[in-house]
């Protein structure tokens, strides 16, 4: 029960309270770039959710087994190299490098796989996938997961389920934000915006107001935790 409630809390926190785009302001480039039409925004959101889940899975596995201090695989190699040494194997300096590497290559792999076996899906995701390769929202999700996996006591370490919940619902939150934004920008096309504010300027102002609206969720998590306990 405690595990389930922690998953629910992580999910709601990632999707609404600490929305990646509107709270942390990561992933702004697709948020502004692909939010002109609702259908394209939804496609982008789905693609981000998909890739963020894959990236979170891979980065959790790599962090837990290779990168974190005292990781099993790294420790095994360390023992082989210098038998009986005191220190623990710690590859956490490689975190950023490995995450970027893994995200880029997994996106490449997924793209090739989709192209071969699911051409319609490739057609609808097509353009978004390479754009996502360098999306900071995904790296951000990996780093958030790293914070709870690497260098924490074993009892507090997040398992794969929690990591995937954070990533997937972070993606859902991104989709929600970008679709809301696209809906507003579609209406904004019809508005008489002052010339100085046209284009990206008004988009940023609108996203700021949207972010303020999402600030209303602050504190929901505490009451929710009390409710679930």
């Amino acid at each position, binding site marked *: 029960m405690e595990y389930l409630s922690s998953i629910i809390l992580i999910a709601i926190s990632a999707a609404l309270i600490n929305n990646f785009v509107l709270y942390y302001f990561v992933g702004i480039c697709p948020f502004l770039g692909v939010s002109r039409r609702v259908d394209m925004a939804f496609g982008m959101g789905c693609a981000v959710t998909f890739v963020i889940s894959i990236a979170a899975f891979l980065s959790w596995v790599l962090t837990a087994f290779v990168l974190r201090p005292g990781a099993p695989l790294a420790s095994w190699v360390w023992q082989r190299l210098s038998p009986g040494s005191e220190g623990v194997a710690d590859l956490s300096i490689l975190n950023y490098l490995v995450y970027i590497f893994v995200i880029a290559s997994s996106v490449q792999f997924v793209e090739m*796989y989709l192209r071969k076996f699911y051409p319609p899906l490739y057609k609808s995701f097509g353009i978004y996938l390479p754009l996502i390769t360098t999306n900071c929202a995904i790296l951000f999700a990996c780093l958030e997961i790293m914070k709870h996996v690497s260098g924490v006591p074993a009892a507090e370490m997040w398992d794969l389920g929690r990591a995937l919940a954070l990533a997937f619902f972070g993606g859902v939150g991104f989709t929600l934000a970008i679709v809301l934004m696209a809906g507003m920008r579609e209406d904004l096309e019809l508005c008489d915006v002052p010339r100085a504010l046209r284009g990206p300027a008004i988009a940023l102002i609108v996203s700021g107001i949207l972010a303020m609206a999402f600030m209303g969720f602050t504190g929901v998590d505490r009451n929710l935790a009390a409710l679930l306990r």
Partner: protein
Amino acid sequence: MISGEVLVAGGAMTVLAVAVAYVLGWANKTFHVEVDPRVEAAVAALPGANCGGCGYVGCSEYAEAVVLKGEQVTKCTVGGASVATALAGLMGVEVGESWPYRAVVHCGATTAQRLQRRDYRGEQSCGAANMISGIQGCTYGCLGLGDCVAACKFGAIHVCDGLATVDYERCTGCGACVRACPRHIITMVPFKAERMLVVKCSNKDTGKDVTSVCTVGCIGCGICARTNKLLQIDSGLAGIDYDQYDPATADFATVLSKCPRESLVWVGKPTPRDLAAVADEKLPDRVEADFKTTVDDAEWRG
């Protein structure tokens, strides 16, 4: 002295890189999809900005449409003419004819034809006058204060009898007047011929309301739409479908005689017959502005 930790880190990175490279290389071969080499060439010819300006999602989709579906080669707004030429060379087609766009004022009423006008003594600009109501009955039509005249760098637009009128011998199609008009009644029309038929009205109100404010405006009766399939009525206003407009075959004689108002008008360069008809009329002498007594156009008008 390189510590063991650095060695392990470097080794881990190398192992990871080799493993991923192997997997990706294998995937590239296994999941290889045969594509038309022309599509690849077209993708290479496009700028790769993936801006969506062509109406397709990204450059590769547009390239596919060009090669496989015979889409026009001129749609890339980023690449412009050079990319269009490259694509045309690739596909072995001519770059499609592109029409010069010219400004058209969608109002045909002179001051005398606009009803319910009041004396306006405020700032002599359409932008200011547009903000207050009651200057004239028609809230869609030309105000005649010449914001478009001031915006035009080519002297191609003038206010004649209180109505902005385009001089098509001078108009370059830059669109400055379109942006200047606060009532948005100037649009760019593809001039497929020297003379184009246009709807000289922007009033979307019902017929009764239009007749109460204007003696020439379109009342949306729809007789033109029933007579000619190039015309249609959209929210109480006639419009011409310029995509289908073909000056060689279109016959507008019937529809022009049927229109009960004077909303359908030919604009553009006059035909020799028109010139002959007015040849014996005496032209007024051209009056040049005297810059000793006038400061600028705005003061001149007021």
